[in-house]
């Protein structure tokens, strides 16, 4: 798999993202990158800040949703976007992410929420794939 794989796919009302990764960690990483691209968030030039984010969930799909929700929450409440991610996962239910946060210069898309709609992380030949539907 070359480069971060994510692709916006057709959804009548909302937005859907197909994401792949060679493993679960890369899937979480690519999902975050894909979601940021959907928002059109542009970081402001200037200082950034390192932060650690820790999330837990009962299963893989839950961890994916909770992780993306965590990023959206900070984007809305603190006006930041993300320029670097370093992810560490324990099992399938615990994620610690070291992220670099930068204030948002501009943003074009408001994502209201990350949904569980038809959410399933599936094995493919060279890793994992899922489709995430966002309420926009």
């Amino acid at each position, binding site marked *: 798999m070359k480069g971060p794989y994510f692709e*916006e*796919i*057709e*959804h*009548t*009302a*909302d*937005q859907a993202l197909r994401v792949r990764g060679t493993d679960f960690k890369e899937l979480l990483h690519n999902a975050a990158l894909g979601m940021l691209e959907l*928002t*059109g968030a542009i970081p402001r030039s200037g200082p950034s800040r390192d932060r650690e984010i820790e999330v837990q*969930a*009962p299963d893989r*799909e*839950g961890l994916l*949703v*909770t992780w993306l*929700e965590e990023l959206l*929450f900070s*984007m*809305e*409440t603190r*006006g930041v976007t993300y320029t670097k991610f370093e992810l560490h996962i324990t099992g399938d239910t615990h994620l610690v992410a070291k992220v670099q946060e930068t204030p948002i210069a501009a*943003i*074009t*898309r*408001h994502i*209201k*929420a*990350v*949904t*569980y*709609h*038809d*959410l399933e992380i599936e094995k493919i030949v060279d890793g994992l794939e899922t489709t995430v*539907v966002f*309420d*926009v």
Partner: protein
Amino acid sequence: MIHKQDFRKLGPVLWEIPTSYRHDMRVPVRIIADDRILEAALSDKSILQAVNASTLPGLVSHIIVMPDVHQGYGFPIGGVAATRLPHGVISPGGIGYDINCGVRLLSSRIPAKAVEPHLDDLASALYANCPSGVGVKGSIRLSVKQLDQICRQGAVWTLKNGYAREEDVERTEGGGCIEGADPAHVSDRAKQRGRPQLGSLGAGNHFIEVDFVEQVFHPEAAQAMGLEEGMIALQIHCGSRGFGHQICSDYVRELQGAVKRYQIQLPDRELVCAPLNSPEGKRYLSAMTCAANYAFANRQVLVHHARRTFEQTLAGKVSDWELHQVYDIAHNIGKIEEHVVDGEKVRVCVHRKGATRAFGPGFEELPDEYQELGQPVLVPGSMATSSWVLLGTEGSMALSFGSTCHGAGRTMSRKRAKRTVRGDQLRERMESKGIHVRARSMPGLAEEAPQAYKDVDAVIEVVVRAGIAKKVARLRPMAVIKG
């Protein structure tokens, strides 16, 4: 894949998928549609989502799908489902993340011709005074205590604090305040998102629109609503902002565990739910009510800003610049109501996701002037096309749990709309038709292009033929303020 032959035709614009279609359906799925709308609905997952929703425990009678249906997540947009108290379930995904997203309409005695020379200034001033856009904060910074008061009081809080008139609150669904809200069931995160956002429009398909009344179909109702041909009206479409989004997200996550505890089998995790009499179900209903009340207050504060804007812009230029509330309705909500099912009065939780309450004449909650007419129903079209004012009917009580459509309904994805339409060109086209546009994002404008939606007039014809609404008036846009 669902095909047209899987439906039984029950009437000229009424179709049904029986429970025999899939083993896990608990009730049939009915759709109000003509042939064209039904065929369009089969092109995406709308009907499959309605079939999935028909598996929820405690449903009564049938799922009903409106002609503005389109694919959502979990439930389809345009879906209505009623679950029986006390054991039936409540599903956050059946209400949506934008809890009490809804529409407010205000009438005026301002002739459209008199406002035309000032319309550019009016559009700019509305855009400046009514905060809109992604993550934009509102005009009021609430303390936690004030937010808790809004959760309990809704639009009544705005009346007590100088943002509303009594007639506004009286002419709001549920009096702008639904009972049962308890902010103790709302997370700190939701409160953190809700405190700075009261009085803001948000983004996406939310808008403020200056319209004129193009045609009146029901003079008596139009008169009661203050709508007169050729006069200005104002529509506001928005919801509970980040407050509601967070409440829904919190409970969709929490109820993932509840469905296991209550051994509820579902075809889609977005449909998670809990019995209405369970601790989880009661907590969600209470938190959802907080967001619903917040949304009523949010639209009211925007009305306050709009009135101020009209005064600033039009005082001395027209003789009467007042805006009078016609009505305010929710189209993403769960309501505890009484309905007749199989000849028996039952208390149910009506999930309306992209559907509008449309109660007929005699409903005691309605203000006196609407008692004999029925409840006003507000149906915005897409940008640059008609919007409609309707009345609820007795037919809607019998067929659709007192509900009707909520809009035109999308037919084209946002991705395709952006490929097909350029925002700047759309804006030019609208301006050439005399529609003033204010929008933060041109791609965002393109996503909401009229081509991306069904013909709202066709949707209205279907709900009228089905007997679940009556026409009162058609509005035409003059200025659109997009989030």
